[in-house]
């Protein structure tokens, strides 16, 4: 037995425990699906509440028109919602496009806030704060600039949050608009679907908790006011807000019937930048909220914190350690004598991964294809491994920022 053995053992245990946690989540998520699939969405109240939809945008000229148009086309009573586009320090033609839209839909509640370097340009949280200051809805919905929500999306969200006072926010589902564009987007499609069913639906089912995904969600205005707006330092403002909402004793519900279609990165490098930014953001939130783990009043969100800690620290470091040991072992620099799991077990585990992912897929139309099975297998060896790199990179960047005190700014996801 060598020190490397013990390191390896810890890694292996971490990896396997997380696998088991995810299995539980998938089961819970799927039960949620079976249960709610046929339940009707609650009806809107007689007088639907006024909703402010905020769309932060930074150089989104390529997609903003489509997004705004689909928001304008929602089946929510047109006079009961406003659209606030915060065109934050864009250098492209966004502002012209947006004013064109304003002209075309002159009768609608479409507000465009253009900021420049001095007034804005400090990231999504800042943009949202600017938009929030101008909003007047009692509910605040947020869509990313690359979204195409279905007509019913907002209605379902509003109906859901109005039906239950304990809900601080309701999140919808997002799907991949360009899923056929490349292998990567196919992977992302599978990933987002299974992640939402597993993590969001599963956690809702078990703990009445979800994490706000950054788009297609609705919140109560007073909550935002109470927490003092968005934390401008947080890159993962969504996760941050989620934690704040939990802490106030509210729940966040997942309403899978509210769907928005999102544009996903089509190339690995864009994807990598986007995801490592998320990862870094999540690390920030975890670190910030880590003390809550020892706070009695935060009992309900302990799982969430633990879950994030597990994924971003334990899993990543375990995977890195075990892979590193594997490489060093392959190079002959370290010698591990640790016994392994039987290969049959590994095979079972991979089967579990594939089947688990697949059953979350067949909740969606058009996804019950044999090709998806192959894609999942391919994903296991490519995409999932890349995720590790992403998370590690995010972690690295977080600490780099911590050391060099870098300023938060817009990280732009490239559009196609």
């Amino acid at each position, binding site marked *: 037995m060598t020190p490397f053995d013990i390191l390896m053992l810890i890694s292996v245990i971490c990896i396997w425990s997380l696998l088991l946690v995810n299995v539980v989540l998938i089961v819970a998520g799927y039960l949620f699906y079976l249960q709610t699939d046929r339940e009707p969405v609650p009806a809107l109240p007689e007088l639907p509440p006024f909703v402010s939809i905020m769309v932060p945008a930074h150089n989104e000229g390529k997609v903003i028109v489509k997004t705004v148009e689909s928001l304008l086309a929602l089946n929510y009573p047109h006079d009961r919602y406003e659209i606030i586009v915060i065109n934050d320090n864009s250098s492209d033609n966004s502002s012209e496009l947006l004013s064109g839209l304003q002209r075309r839909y002159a009768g609608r509640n479409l507000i465009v806030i253009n900021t420049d370097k001095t007034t804005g340009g400090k990231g999504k949280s800042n943009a949202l704060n600017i938009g929030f200051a101008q909003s007047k809805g009692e509910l605040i919905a947020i869509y990313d600039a690359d979204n195409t929500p279905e007509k019913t999306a907002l209605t379902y969200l509003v109906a859901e949050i109005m039906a239950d006072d304990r809900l601080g926010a309701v999140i919808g589902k997002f799907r991949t608009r360009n899923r056929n564009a490349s292998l990567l987007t196919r992977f992302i499609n599978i990933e987002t679907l299974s992640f939402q069913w597993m993590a969001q639906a599963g956690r809702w089912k078990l703990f009445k908790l979800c994490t706000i995904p950054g788009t297609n969600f609705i919140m109560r205005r007073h909550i935002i006011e109470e927490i003092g707006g968005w934390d401008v330092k947080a890159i993962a403002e969504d996760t941050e807000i989620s934690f704040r909402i939990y802490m106030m004793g509210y729940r966040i519900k997942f309403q899978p019937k509210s769907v928005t279609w999102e544009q996903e990165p089509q190339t690995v490098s864009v994807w990598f930048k986007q995801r490592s930014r998320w990862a870094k953001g999540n690390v920030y939130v975890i670190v910030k909220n880590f003390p809550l783990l020892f706070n009695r009043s935060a009992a309900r969100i302990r799982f969430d914190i633990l879950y994030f800690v597990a994924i971003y620290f334990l899993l990543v470091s375990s995977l890195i350690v075990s892979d590193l040991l594997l490489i060093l072992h392959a190079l002959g620099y370290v010698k591990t004598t*640790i016994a392994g799991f039987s290969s049959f077990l590994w095979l079972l585990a991979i089967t*579990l991964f594939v089947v688990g992912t697949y059953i979350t897929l067949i909740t969606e139309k058009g996804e019950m294809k044999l090709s998806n099975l192959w894609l999942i297998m391919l994903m296991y060896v490519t995409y999932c491994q890349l995720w590790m790199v992403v998370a590690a990179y995010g972690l690295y960047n977080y600490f780099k920022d911590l050391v060099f005190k870098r300023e938060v700014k817009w990280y732009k996801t490239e559009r196609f």
Partner: protein
Amino acid sequence: MRKSFSIARTAMLIVLAFALAYASVSPCPAAAESAPPAAAGQVLLLYDSLALSTVRQGNVETIERLLAAYGARVVAMAFDRYTAGTLKSYSRVVVVRNAPDLSANDTLASELAAYDGDYLQIGGQTLPDRVRARLGLKLTPAPPDMIRIEAGDYGQALSTVADLDFIAGTSADAKRYGTLTSMSDGRRMPYAAAAGGYAYASCLSAGGLTELALAYVLKDWLHAAGDFGAYVLIKEVYPFSDLALLKTLADKLYDAGVPFVISVKPVFYNTSYPAMQRYLQAMQYVQSRNGSIIVDAPAVAATSTAADGSLRGKMSGFIELLADNGIAPLGMGAGLSWAYDQIYASEGMSFFDSVFLGPDPQGQQVQPGGTSAAFAFSPYVMPFAQLQDFERRSIAPHTPLPLNLAFSFDLFRDAASMEDAVDAIARSWIPFSDLKNGAHAVRTDRLTVQSSDGSLLIDGKPLDIDKKGREVDADYAYTAAPKTSFTKLFGVQNRILMVIIGLSLAVFGLFFFIGYRRYRRKFLYRGGSHDAF
């Protein structure tokens, strides 16, 4: 009658030998003192040519082996390698003449003429005068004709031998050996004649009856006495051989009452393998069937060098391995060249006092030496097939053998040839001797293996030859399993996880079933209800 005669003759010869020994020592004590002591008991073998590509090819080797069978240390030398003065150190000289056109150079000729020790010549017309005179030898060229030779209990027709000379006449007191019969005119001449330390034999060719005929001459010339035995020797026994066949052979010979010797090839590596266990078991079985074991010489690679130095350890290791497994090797089987190689002799053969020397015309040597190694017991190895070529003059042999003789077989290819051979052995009527009835000893640094009067001793303790050996390990671990840690923990984890994953898979399967039905109902029959895009 014949027997009593032979005893009388032996007695006379012994007396004569003493007389001769006395005679040779007393006249010139100076010479004896000046001679290197090592050479004193040695035989100098001089030959004019190796007679390659003639019927005589191999006869130098044959005489070397014959001499070895009498425990003589031999220095062999071609005429042209002879250096002046060599002869002085020897009291016994054998000269082989194969080519009448090659004559001894002047030095050798004059020294031979002056030489007064024991002298044996095979073939040729030129003899030292002293020898010719003492033997009263008259030689006549033999006609180019079929010749028949008779010696002991056997006869054989010799094909035409070039430059053969008949002994047409000898002095009266010369002893005559065997007969040569000219087939055309029926003249009968002695094969050889000897008198007073001098002897002459007409010819010697390898692989024929002349070998045996000469042995009778040599026995007297070297004053060898004692009872000689015949042995059955099974050679070419490898661990790769058909070991089942070997066991059957042992059974057959045991049933036929024939004691036998097998010469097993040594193994130096992987001696713990099951394959080796089978080999050892076969030997144990052979031993329990009245077979004796001797160790064959290993094969030598063309690239071997004298500096290698591994032979001693390997041989003693193998001997000790055998002994540890209840097998008592009593001697060694080797090609003649082994006895003439310094390294082989000192590192490979020094454990043994009994060595079966067989022919090996292409023996690979690493350090050819001048003097051959001699052994207390060294039967002359003759292929049994050679014996079968001899005509028997009576059903059962009754002339005592002139030397210890091992009739050799290569381990048989199949059961049929084995049956034939066992049959032939039985029909030969030869009373075969049991090797372990003689006194043989094998000594390594660690242990001693001995035999005497039919019992086998290892370090003085009698060996139970009927004891069964170890079973072959069916699960022998060839490669050491890599050391692992946390084996137990992982074993438990393995099982727990397998159960959990199995259960999860079952649940997923159920989900899949439900999900599949729902999917079909929702999306395939009624069309998308709310998921339309």
